[in-house]
């Protein structure tokens, strides 16, 4: 039941629910604001640099034919400067005695490419490094200055800044100094801006595979397919490099620039689908910027592509992020689930980074470190966590469902069994009733009438009372057989009711009183397993007890006690006691009656009948005293045996 706990909205009146929802919205927005502020604060922290003494900031810049003094960092107004790149000329001093140490030039950040010359010797051209060529990555560069080039004292350094768009050129402060002083900072930047994105891209590749498999197995959930496509595009963008220079493939490479809008469009579609939105035809407009950019890359020139990138891709990413922020916020508030909440936080982080990047493009930030791409990793982590959460929850639900199903199937099976048994029981009872009706008619038409005639004739003849008694006994037994075949629904009291009548009719001519005492209110427990042959055995046993009292004991009163007793094992057992106030007899040690062989046979009969029903028979007799008489006590079993106990 608790599997759905997070989907159940508590039943609240409208006003209270509105208040709850608005308070949740405020809490959510506050949290996102805190995340955004924290993000900005982190982004404003400048990365640690090498010792300031090696920093070189004063340069003489030759740009577009004009020459002037500048201090780094420098934002160039140019978007394209390949043939006549801005040239920075500066000086640095190597103290004497440093010759034994290798010196390096460290350029933490530049767009798009640099060529570094020391003392008129080119020591670095970043255009040869594809990874460094991408303006969206903050790839640092370091170059060791050959010892032969350096001299003690003043050295000349010249940097040419190649700019090929889509954003304006930029050159951060540079450091020239001993390699071991610069290298740690370089390594740190490489780790954060080169290695970490590769790690995240690998993670993205794994996600693409997992999501692809999930979509293949679950075609009805297109959200996974869309996200897998987004991941695949991201991986392609990360690992396919864009070398400078015109190669036959460079035109296709240009398509890669459209990856950002396509990927963001795909992720947006995923977020929409995840929040329960149904795909609409008009939604293709989401992909228009990306497709337009790709087509421009294929058929236009690079300059056009780069120009379009700024007006298509960057806003597309931002708009996607904004829509996702709204959608995930709604989803998180309505469904109150962890996946939407994590995604919402990730979107906020990304949006913050995107805004900061935009500001830095427009030179409103002191530096130019792009973090949007890096923060995308936050989103990937959120997506991974959310998916795992959903997967685990789905597994739990499946387990719960399977468990419920097993229980239900078992219940249904038991019900079926019970109803089958009931049906069988009913069919058996109906068959018995039909058989009984048939038997009754036969006996009624034949044997019964003849017996009655015998009774009547013997009475007229006067001298043959024995025949009359025998015929009467036969009739009585006939009635018992018919009676015991009736369906009494396991209530032995119904059989005893008829027996009482017959016993009274039998005792009346002998002037023996029958004292009938149902001690417990409902008499005897109901035994659904009670069968006609059990009833016959019990009634004949009781008949025998009464007949003994009439014939041998000279009793004046017979008492029948019917009660339900709780045994030592806590089970209820019926108990029937037949007691007379006659002369009693001696009971031999083996349980038989001392005296007439006939009486002994009668007692043996009673014992055998009790045993066949699984009942206990207790005989006691007392020839003298206040308690003289015979007592037959029959304790019924808790459950009557299915088969004849004496057969074995």
């Amino acid at each position, binding site marked *: 039941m608790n599997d759905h706990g997070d989907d159940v909205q508590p039943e609240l009146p409208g006003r209270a629910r509105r208040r709850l929802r608005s308070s949740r919205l405020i809490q959510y927005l506050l949290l996102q604001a805190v995340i955004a502020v924290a993000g900005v604060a982190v982004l404003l922290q400048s990365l640690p640099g090498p010792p300031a003494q090696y920093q070189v900031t004063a340069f003489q810049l030759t740009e577009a034919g004009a020459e002037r003094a500048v201090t780094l960092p420098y934002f160039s107004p140019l978007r394209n400067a390949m043939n006549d790149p801005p040239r920075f000329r500066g000086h640095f001093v190597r103290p004497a005695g440093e010759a034994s140490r290798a010196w390096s030039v460290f350029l933490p950040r530049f767009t798009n490419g640099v060529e570094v010359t020391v003392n008129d010797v080119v020591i670095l051209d970043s255009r040869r490094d594809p990874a460094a060529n991408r303006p969206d990555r903050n790839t640092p560069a370091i170059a060791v200055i050959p010892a032969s080039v350096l001299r003690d004292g003043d050295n000349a350094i010249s940097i040419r800044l190649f700019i090929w768009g889509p954003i304006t050129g930029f050159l951060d402060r540079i450091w020239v100094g001993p390699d071991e002083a610069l290298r740690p900072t370089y390594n740190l930047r490489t780790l954060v801006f080169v290695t970490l994105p590769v790690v995240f891209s690998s993670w993205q590749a794994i996600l693409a595979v997992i999501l692809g498999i999930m979509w293949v197995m679950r075609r009805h959930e297109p959200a996974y397919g869309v996200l897998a496509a987004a991941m695949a595009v991201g991986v392609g963008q990360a690992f396919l490099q864009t070398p400078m220079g015109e190669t036959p493939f460079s035109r296709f490479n240009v398509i890669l620039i459209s990856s950002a809008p396509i990927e963001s469009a795909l992720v947006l579609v995923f977020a929409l689908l995840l929040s329960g939105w149904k795909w609409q035809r008009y939604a293709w407009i989401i992909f228009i910027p990306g497709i337009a950019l790709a087509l421009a890359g294929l058929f236009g020139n690079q300059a056009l592509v780069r120009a379009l990138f700024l007006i298509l891709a960057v806003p597309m990413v931002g708009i996607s992020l904004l829509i996702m922020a709204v959608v995930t916020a709604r989803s998180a508030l309505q469904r109150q689930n962890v996946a939407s909440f994590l995604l919402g936080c990730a979107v906020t982080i990304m949006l913050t980074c995107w805004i900061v990047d935009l500001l830095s493009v427009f030179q409103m930030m002191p530096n130019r470190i792009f973090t949007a791409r890096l923060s995308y990793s936050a989103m990937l982590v959120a997506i991974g966590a959310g998916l795992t959460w959903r997967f685990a929850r789905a597994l739990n639900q499946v387990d719960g469902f399977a468990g419920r199903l097993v229980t239900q199937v078992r219940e249904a099976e038991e019900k079926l069994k019970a109803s089958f048994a009931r049906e069988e029981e009913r069919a058996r009872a109906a068959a018995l009733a039909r058989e009984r*009706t048939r038997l009754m008619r036969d006996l*009624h038409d034949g044997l019964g009438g003849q017996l009655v005639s015998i009774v009547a004739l013997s009475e007229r003849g006067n001298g043959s009372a024995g025949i009359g008694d025998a015929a009467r006994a036969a009739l009585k037994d006939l009635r018992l057989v018919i009676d015991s075949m009736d369906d009494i629904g396991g209530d032995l009291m119904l059989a*005893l009711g008829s027996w009482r009548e017959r016993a009274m009719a039998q005792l009346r001519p002998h002037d023996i009183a029958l004292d009938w005492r149902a001690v417990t209110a409902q008499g005897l427990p109901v035994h659904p397993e009670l069968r006609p042959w059990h009833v016959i055995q019990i009634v004949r046993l009781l008949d025998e007890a009464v007949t003994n009292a009439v014939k041998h004991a000279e009793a004046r009163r017979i008492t029948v006690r019917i009660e339900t007793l709780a045994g030592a094992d806590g089970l209820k057992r019926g108990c029937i006691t037949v007691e007379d106030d006659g002369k009693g007899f001696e009971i031999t040690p083996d349980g038989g009656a001392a005296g007439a062989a006939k009486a002994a046979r009668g007692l043996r009969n009673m014992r055998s009948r009790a045993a066949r029903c699984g009942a206990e028979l207790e005989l006691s007799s007392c020839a003298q005293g206040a308690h003289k008489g015979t007592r037959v006590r029959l304790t019924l079993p808790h459950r009557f045996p299915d088969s004849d106990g004496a057969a074995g």
Partner: protein
Amino acid sequence: MNSLSDGPRAEAITVVLVEDDAPTLWRLQDALAKAGYQVRAAGTLAEARACLAQGAPKVLLTDLQLPDGHGVDLIRETRRRFPDTEIMVISILGDEESVISAITVGATGYLLKDAFPTDIAATVRDLVAGHSPISASIARFIVRRTQSTPEPPPGPVLNTTKLTPREIDILWGIAKGFSYAEIASHLGLSRQTVPGHIKSIYRKLEVHTRGEAVFEAVQQGLIKL
């Protein structure tokens, strides 16, 4: 038991006895005559009708299987012609097959053919006094019919819908072998009212009024079968 002393009162009571088995007829006739009843005996349906033509008896005792017809018809006729006549069926086994079919046409009890003479006289006396006899097995049959079952059980048709819960309780008590006194004390009744309840139960199980109503309704087209 002491029925002979009731002679003067019983003298006025006429009993029509219908039984085709001669020895059985004799012993029943003897038992009743000794108790002081005025008995008119018949061996066939025709003889029985002739006896009834002489005037309304107080009591009609009849067997069901007769050489020239069925006792059920005799009971139905008598019930219609002489509503004040008490009718009992003579049964060999006291089984519900014969007893219930007699009850549904107007009998209010049964007599076992092998009953002791004193019991025969006592039963008739009780019947005249308004105490309809009922056996545990008949009571059991009736109450089991009051319990709803998916399909009609075998045996004679019986409509128990008119019985009140109290009457059903009384029948349960009888079926389980309780005496009238025990039933009366369980149900908070006066002991004397129990036999009256039993007669009322028999009357409610009589089917002819209802059957005629249905017949009438069908004839008039009120009910489509």
